[in-house]
């Protein structure tokens, strides 16, 4: 029951075998039993959820279509607006803001597909981190080992799915905040193309780099939730105009004819050998023998760091002036330092971004899909300050995004796919494609899942 897929739940609700209200009540019982060990949820929306579930049941009883995700429970990172709740974004400071007057469009769209909102989830403060070690609300714990991080910044979103609390959650990804926790918790995540899913009604971090997307335990659930959220939105200036491009019907098309390569160079040098070996095994299963080098990936990561630092700190400048002591201690000094970055560094980083995009697009005309690790290693311990990657000692918190930052820097769509376990801890792979080709990312993910190469492995003892 805990690991039932979203589509299995929806099929039962739509078919009248299970009442949505009963299912959702059971989900709240599971959350209340398991969440104390994970600290994934920050708030529950119980009365709202039961009303939404009843509305689904009423549609089924009336013989009307309740939607493709009828009765499926979902939860959102607490930077999504939820009507009646304050959008905390993992902060103490935002507690002073009024409650959101309306749901974010992605919450509305999932509700429109019949899904039921059950709560909001923990995260790094203002999404600035890869570990979800939140001093205000406590760390989110990895369901595979509660002494370890769930990844971040959408750590609550990943832990809730991996821990069997809900089948769908939403998160955000600026530099890796969907892909890193997906990898460390061993689930599937989708960071769509920059501009694909509207960001309206979400608390921003870095406008140039912010993306929103879903987490699930299977490719099919990922596709179904992603399809339900697509579509234009004039409220987000970068949201793609034009009709949605559904992918759920494309998953069975397979990978025949696709030119698939593995990323070498930077992506091999900066990940542990055991992780790279899992990527090589997945590539071999797909018949991908080619290795490509994404040019200047290390410099791209550096440029993403500068853009993030600059835009992120400017967003919070008024509060840094007046109440710096209220920020998360793990990021306060970084935010303060970032306010002093010279404009020339930022403009050069944006200029480099255009150059890099042009070069990577040349590569993406030679191959359709690039495979790379999602994280350089498995989950670190909560509180761990440093880690060694291939013998190089480095700070663990900023460097968990080494593999993801060069990709989101130019907005490419990526499916994060769980490709194996190392000493009982999961690790994921990025399936990277050209802009707007989420369909290819998810087709590759589906084939790997069908082969048994990619799969969600339930934690040994659910917390």
């Amino acid at each position, binding site marked *: 029951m805990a690991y039932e897929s979203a589509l299995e739940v929806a099929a039962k609700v739509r078919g009248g075998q299970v009442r949505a209200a009963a299912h959702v009540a059971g989900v709240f019982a599971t959350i209340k039993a398991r969440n104390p060990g994970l600290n994934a949820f920050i708030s529950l929306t119980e009365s709202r959820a039961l009303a939404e579930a009843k509305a689904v049941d009423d549609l089924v009883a009336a013989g009307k279509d309740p939607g493709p995700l009828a009765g499926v429970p979902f939860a959102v990172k607490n930077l999504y607006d939820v009507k009646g709740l304050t959008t905390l974004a993992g902060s103490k400071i935002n507690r002073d803001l009024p409650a959101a007057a309306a749901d974010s469009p992605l919450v509305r769209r999932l509700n429109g597909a019949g899904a039921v909102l059950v709560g909001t989830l923990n995260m790094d403060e203002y999404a600035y981190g890869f570990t979800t070690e939140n001093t205000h609300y406590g760390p989110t714990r990895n369901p595979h080992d509660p002494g370890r991080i769930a990844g971040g910044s959408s750590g609550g979103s990943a832990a809730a799915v991996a821990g069997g609390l809900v089948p769908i959650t939403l998160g955000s990804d600026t530099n890796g905040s969907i892909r890193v926790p997906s990898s460390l918790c061993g689930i599937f995540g989708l960071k769509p193309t920059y501009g694909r899913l509207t960001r309206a009604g979400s608390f921003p971090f870095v406008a140039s780099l912010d993306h929103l997307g879903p987490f699930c335990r299977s490719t099919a659930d990922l596709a179904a939730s992603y399809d339900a959220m697509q579509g234009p939105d004039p409220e987000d200036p970068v949201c793609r105009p034009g009709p949605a491009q559904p992918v759920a019907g494309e998953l069975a098309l397979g990978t025949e004819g696709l030119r698939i390569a593995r990323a070498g160079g930077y992506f091999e040098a900066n990940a542990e050998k055991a992780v790279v070996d899992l990527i090589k095994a997945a590539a071999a299963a797909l018949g991908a023998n080619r290795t490509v080098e994404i040019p200047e990936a290390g410099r791209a990561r550096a440029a993403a760091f500068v853009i993030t630092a600059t835009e992120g700190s400017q967003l919070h400048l008024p509060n840094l002036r007046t109440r710096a002591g209220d920020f998360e201690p793990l990021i306060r*000094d970084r935010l303060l*330092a970032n306010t002093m970055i010279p404009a020339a*560094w930022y403009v050069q980083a*944006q200029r480099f971004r*255009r150059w890099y995009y042009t070069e990577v697009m040349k590569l993406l005309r030679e191959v359709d899909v690039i495979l790379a690790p999602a994280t350089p290693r498995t989950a670190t311990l909560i509180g761990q300050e440093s880690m060694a990657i291939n013998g190089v000692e480095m700070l663990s918190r900023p460097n968990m995004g080494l593999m993801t930052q060069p990709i989101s820097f*130019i*907005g490419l769509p990526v499916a994060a796919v769980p490709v194996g376990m190392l000493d009982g801890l999961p690790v994921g792979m990025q399936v990277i494609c050209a*802009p707007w080709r989420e369909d290819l990312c998810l087709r590759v993910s589906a084939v790997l899942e069908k082969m048994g190469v990619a799969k969600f492995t339930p934690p040994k003892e659910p917390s």
Partner: protein
Amino acid sequence: MDPALIDEAFVRRAAALQGIELTAEQLPGVIENLRRTAQLAAAVNEFPLDPAAGELGPVWRP
């Protein structure tokens, strides 16, 4: 910028320009973080690019 140029005097003045008053507790972390960013920025700044070439607009099309 040479990261060594980032010292207490520099960050105090740069913070003041932004209307921020740094506490003694914040100073070491601010200096350390700005030096780290300076090192990463140096890798980007040394990359030769024509300032007049290319539009910076972050809109990505296939």
